[in-house]
């Protein structure tokens, strides 16, 4: 049983990778199946944003997370990793701790909404993995984020 689960997981991962490659091109959103991880990434939205130095969930984040929960509850076999990130305006160590706080805020939201604990893992990247590279609020606001990565779980 476990092996079958793992096989599905690998296939989904592969599908996810394929779709990722083409996501930059003119892929028609309507063609994405609701079951694809790409649907989760693009149409549900895998990313929530945070205020400077904060890890509290904003209203815009909560509405995205509610949609994520709805989708994730349908895919009980998929493990989930929440990545916490910070912008470049802080020191490295502090940002690692801040990213952990942000990822934990999302994890706790999921747990409260009934997502199974053993599906969830968190990781912090601090300021190590910026999504946008300009050095002003336009980019920083996009880098202060928690990303829900589906199909991946990191062992403790």
């Amino acid at each position, binding site marked *: 049983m476990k092996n079958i689960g793992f096989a599905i997981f690998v296939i989904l991962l592969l599908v996810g990778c394929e779709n990722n490659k083409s996501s930059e091109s003119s892929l028609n959103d309507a063609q994405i199946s609701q079951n694809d991880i790409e649907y989760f990434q693009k149409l549900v939205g895998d990313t929530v944003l945070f205020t400077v130095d904060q890890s509290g969930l904003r209203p815009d984040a909560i509405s995205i997370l509610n949609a994520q929960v709805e989708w994730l509850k349908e895919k009980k076999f998929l493990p989930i990793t929440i990545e916490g990130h910070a912008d470049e305006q802080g020191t490295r160590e*502090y940002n*690692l*701790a*801040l990213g*952990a706080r942000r990822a*934990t805020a999302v994890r706790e939201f999921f747990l409260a909404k009934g997502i199974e604990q053993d599906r969830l893992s968190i990781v912090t990247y601090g300021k190590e993995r*910026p999504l946008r*590279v300009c050095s002003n609020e336009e980019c920083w606001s996009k880098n202060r984020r928690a990303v829900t990565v589906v199909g991946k779980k990191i062992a403790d």
Partner: protein
Amino acid sequence: MVKQSVSKSLKLIFFIGMLLINLSFAFAQKTVAPQLDMTVNRGVIKPISLAVPSFIKESGANSIISRELAKVISNNLNSTGLFKSIPQTAYVSTPLSFNTPVQFSDWSIINADVLVVGSVGLKPDGRLEVKFRLWDVSQQKEIGKGKQYFTNSESWRRISHKISDTIYTRVTGEGAYFDSRVVFVSETGPKDNRTKRLAIMDQDGANFRLLKHPPSLVIAPRFSPTTNKIIFTGYETGKPRVYLMDLSSGEITSLPELQGMSFAPRFSADGSEIVLSMTENGNTDIFISNLASGTKRRLTTNIAIDTAPSFSPDGNRIVFESDRGGGQQLYIIPSKGGEAKRISFGEGRYATPVWSPRGDLIAFTKIKEGKFHIGVMRVDGTKERLLTTSFLDEGPAWAPNGRVLMFFRETPGKAGAPSIYSIDISGRNLRKIKTSSFASDPNWSQILN
């Protein structure tokens, strides 16, 4: 000029000690040690004028090495900002043999304060024999005793560093720091897809080498006190975790007691313990891990972010940053456990405190009004001084003598990238260390054995 006003009977050491301190202040005190308190002096320092002729070539020595020995010594001492080498082209003569009496008039005419006479020869067994003597030109006297070194020919650079250290300590009274290395993170690739590798170089940027490790993200390596190991944070499992690397074997081990997310490790001064931070349920606290027993104990339990810990040199206390008071500030806690006492109270945020190897100062990163600074303060939090400012200056690292700091400076924007800089704790002499890639997270070793 300052020099003429100083009595000839004063020792050069005394003269320089005074130069570095406010002069009028110094004259009032007979017992001026060459201990520097640069806060009293914002004037211009006149550097010691230094002559380092190419080392005299003896029995079969390579002329490249005889030139390079002198060049590395000049570069080291120039890099302190306290010395200035006279170009060799200005020399009136050069020493012919190691034991020939020095023609002081040839050196005083070009205004040399200090002359280094050295020789290098090749022994029948293949080792290099390097000798040097240090001369006070105006006093026409030798400073200290001559020294002699034997080494295999690949290690000539280290001999240059050892000689530089001897000259520096004899003339300034400060501790040595040239014969040391820096472990850091070498960075390549675009800002949103950086590759980070652990690397080591000599203090002057020479002998750069990458360390072998898994390709996943690595952060903030720190030397053990004996420089035979490093500890760093790596993402090999997918999560940040503290690893130990033995530098002679290259073997990397994880510490089983540090399950979960662990980062920001530093050794205690005796190398037996590691202080670090660990994150549990989103909360980051300070822990101490004992390397021999493989056990850890918790030092803080606050719901705030407690991170970036650093031991005092005597091992009794730990300085760390915490946002328990609202913003990031610096705190000191006994390493046996107890109450944390806040030491920083200025505006802005204080981070990455590092205890000086001399025990007297704490270096830190300060963020204020959108700018980053490297600064130092006394252990009780007084006498704060900011040494640098830029878009992003971070992560100070002490030289083994507690006089110089390295840190990294990152430039803004899409093409923004980090480089390592050094600065004197006086706030003078900011220098970029030349590296073959982007470079961040420097950590300075002790003086090598």
